[in-house]
């Protein structure tokens, strides 16, 4: 089963395909999200509720780039989210 860290990582990687390295610099600004390995594209969601951190990540992209970016986030993790229990899924990705 995918972890919430993998969900966040997948979102950033997908955004990277569209906006390039800016996706990572914006992700770093989200409180509670730390980039472990930029090359491998791994992140960790630290203190607090990780679902809220993912919501903030999605929200950050949406504030900057509009609704289309929210859709990109949702599509990127659709298959991952499908295997998670509903309680684990961040509200922005439902």
């Amino acid at each position, binding site marked *: 089963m995918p972890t919430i860290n993998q969900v966040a990582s997948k979102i950033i990687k997908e955004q990277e*395909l*569209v*906006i390039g390295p800016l996706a990572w610099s914006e992700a770093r600004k989200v409180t509670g999200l730390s980039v472990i390995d930029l090359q491998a594209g791994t992140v960790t969601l630290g203190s607090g509720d990780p679902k809220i951190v993912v919501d903030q990540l999605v929200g950050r992209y949406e*504030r*900057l*780039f*509009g609704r*289309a*970016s929210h859709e*990109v986030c949702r599509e990127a993790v659709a298959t991952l989210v499908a295997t998670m229990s509903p309680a684990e899924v961040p509200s922005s990705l439902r």
Partner: protein
Amino acid sequence: MADTDQQHFQAEDYASELRAANEIVYKHSLELARLKQELETANKQQENLLHFISHEIKGYLTKGEAAFAEIVEDTSGKIPETIKTLSSGALLEMRKGVATVMDILDASNLKKGTVTFKKAPLDFKVLVTKIIEEQRPSAYEKHLGLDVKMSDGKFMMDGDEEKLREHVVRNLIDNAIKYTPSGTVHVELSDGDGKIHFMVEDSGVGITPEDMAHLFTEGGHGKDSIKVNVHSTGYGLFIAKQVVDAHGGKIWAESEGGGKGSKFFIQLPASA
């Protein structure tokens, strides 16, 4: 309305315009990213298809080649000379076909990274001498001079003899002969600085700056080269570069332009 309020509204307007502009740029980038992905998938599929087709055709051609070779080499006296003559021509064409398909397959395999290099000690001079002797009749047929200068001694290196011979040395000398309508092809072999230096110079069709930019890329034959050699696949120099690179060497070309001949240089590390 107070000035500060007006400035505040203006700032909000700008921010809103900026967000809208960001969104537009994002949508365009998204479209480009999706198109890029589609293109990459299509390229991959095309590459696989090309590889499959080439592999299949190579199989058919090789069987035909073997059959024609049997007829040509028959000593029983049962096959009429006319059939033998026809078969000899067909065998030659078949071999050209196999070589073309092999070029495409080799390029595809090099791109995929599925080519293995069997490196062993070899004398590069022996390899070059052999190819020159094999290519001399082609130069003679075209009334071209073939001038060879080689320094004394052995030119030892570690390399894949077959790949260096067929894809690098033969390719460069063969190209020089093909693309030179009249004049002389010069071949030089020397050593220095721990390297083997190989050069092929011709007085042929030359290379325009435009063609030079993609000379060693896949399918990168020159704009006019196809007029001289209609059978050019454009993979020869791409493969040559991959082979030279795999040996830790360098390959490059120089030309003063179209119609002004060209020089191809290779540097390969010599054995210590």
